[in-house]
């Protein structure tokens, strides 16, 4: 008998030797990636930080409690109470319009539609999501404002709802797709009709995710300016909660104040922007928290 087989030779280490061209190219590309990441993060950090710091230093309670004073040469405290009221009204109305509609579209896409219809309707909602916000504003202006009646909070809310719709639809479709098919099959197999299965089994399972999508959609449109310029921007300075008239909103107010030459107006714009940004970030964080909380629940694991 021969001796035990010779041990295999140690594996050659496939390390590229120092100083070769390949290694230098690799190191320099890694350096470029690091550099561009640092540059980009630097820029992003500066933007977020300067909005936060400028806004924080200008913040005061007057901002949300006092209306603006037109053509004031005094230093009397003034705020943007009208804009905050208008944003609350318009965004609430837009949410009430877009969310039920978006859920219905998503139910159709995920629960009822044949694959071919599903693809084409899905493509249309994706296209709708890509229409620039300013074009939505022009559309609503041309459809509702120019013909008569002029601007109103309703029309602004309608324009925002169009922006929200594809967003709500997409997130709801994604959540519905996570509901396990075995649940639907179990329910249908017990003789429960389709509509009862959908409303009592599928939707309750997905409701957390739908809520997450809604919160994200609200965060997204709360800062939209363009659709409101043509539909709800010619406004007075008094606080109003009546959507049949044009209402001032926070983004439109910031837009107008940013074009003003008066530093006092800039200060109010920073402060209002800070409040808006904090609201949006809080909503995003809430949505993420809801999402992680619900992800496991939906899948039933």
């Amino acid at each position, binding site marked *: 008998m021969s001796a035990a087989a010779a041990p295999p030779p140690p594996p050659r280490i496939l390390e*590229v030797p120092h100083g070769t061209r390949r290694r230098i190219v690799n190191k320099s590309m890694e350096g470029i990636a690091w550099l561009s*990441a640092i540059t*980009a*993060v630097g820029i992003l950090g500066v933007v977020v930080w300067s909005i936060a710091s400028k806004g924080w230093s200008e913040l005061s309670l007057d901002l949300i409690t006092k209306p603006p004073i037109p053509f004031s040469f005094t230093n009397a405290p003034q705020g943007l109470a009208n804009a905050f009221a208008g944003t609350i009204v318009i965004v609430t109305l837009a949410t009430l319009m877009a969310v039920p509609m978006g859920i219905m579209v998503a139910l159709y896409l995920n629960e009822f539609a044949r694959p071919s219809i599903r693809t084409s309707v899905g493509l249309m909602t994706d*296209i709708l999501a890509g229409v620039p916000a300013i074009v939505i504003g022009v559309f609503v202006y041309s459809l509702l404002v120019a013909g008569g009646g002029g601007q109103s909070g309703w029309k602004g809310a309608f324009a925002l709802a169009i922006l929200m719709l594809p967003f709500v639809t997409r997130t709801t479709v994604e959540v519905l797709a996570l509901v396990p098919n075995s649940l639907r099959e179990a329910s249908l197999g017990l003789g429960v*009709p389709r509509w009862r299965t959908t409303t009592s089994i599928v939707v309750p399972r997905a409701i957390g995710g739908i809520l997450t999508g809604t919160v994200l959609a609200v965060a997204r449109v709360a*800062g939209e300016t*363009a659709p409101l310029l043509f539909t709800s921007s010619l406004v007075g300075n008094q606080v109003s909660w009546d959507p049949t008239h044009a209402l001032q909103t926070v983004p439109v107010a910031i837009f107008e104040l940013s074009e003003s030459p008066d530093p006092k107006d800039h200060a109010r714009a920073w402060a209002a922007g800070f409040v808006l940004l904090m609201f*949006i970030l809080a909503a995003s964080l809430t949505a993420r928290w809801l999402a992680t909380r619900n992800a496991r629940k939906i899948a039933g694991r």
Partner: protein
Amino acid sequence: VSSLDVSPEARRPFSGRRVHVGDIVLQGAAALAALAATLLVVLIVREVVDGARPAIEKFGISFITDVVWNPVAGREAYGAGAFLFGTIITSFFALLLATPLALGIALFLTELSPGFIKTPVTALVETLAAVPSVLIGLWGILVLGPILRTHIEPWLHSVLGWLPFFGEPSSSGASVFTAIIVLTIMILPIVSSISRELFLGVPHELKEAALGLGTTRWEMVRGVMFPYARGGVAAALILGLGRAMGEAIAVTQVIGGGVHISWNLFDTGDTLGSKIASEYQGATSNLEVSSLIYLGLLLLLLSLITNIGAQWIVRQVNKKHGITRGGHA
């Protein structure tokens, strides 16, 4: 067949197949909503064409290239040339600046970054994506503009002044250049987060196989990750381009306005979106309003072309790789 002895009872379809009123109502309502959402796109196109009709009839197709915007009564003449030029040049340069930075961030986050940096950087990128455009515009005109005017623009002019793009620095800080930087910042988060997802989707086996063959990390990125994610990254870039072209508010705040074609990026200018947004209270005659809507129509067509192009690429890629998500703006 006829010999089978089956009672009429048993021949009845079982009750689970019975048509329920609730089924018809729910499915009908859902189908109606889907139909309405689909028709909305058609309605938008139709309504914008309708609103632009007086201008289309008056100026025809030459509106697209005419460099004029004269609202003086009696001598009214409108054209989109300057704004189309502004839209193309701002979005092109923004994409040019954003692409390497976005890919750099994405590669950094997927391949290079240590774990403890990854989370805050990702969070920062997502935070920036959530900042409303009006705030970026506010920052652009009050913080970025003055810095560009006093430091960056004179420096670029002295170093690269022989190029037509870097002429005399702007006087106020509002310029096409400022708009380009602002747009770059706005599309950076979108492109980088989509690219990051695509890079994360590259199968580990492929990457390990390449590294196992002795490639360097960069050779693996170039030879495996880029080809794998190519289609998706192209779609992400087109989506970013569409976003840059469609942005109106932030651009209006920083671009300064003007009806002219200038290759000097430090000049003021206007884009389709910024012209519409800046005239929202100023338009007086019906023809001017209609011409503004005509600008909106051109913008709508540009965005439809870019979006459908991006969707098409995403679908092609998904077919090839079975990736579930191509990303979206």
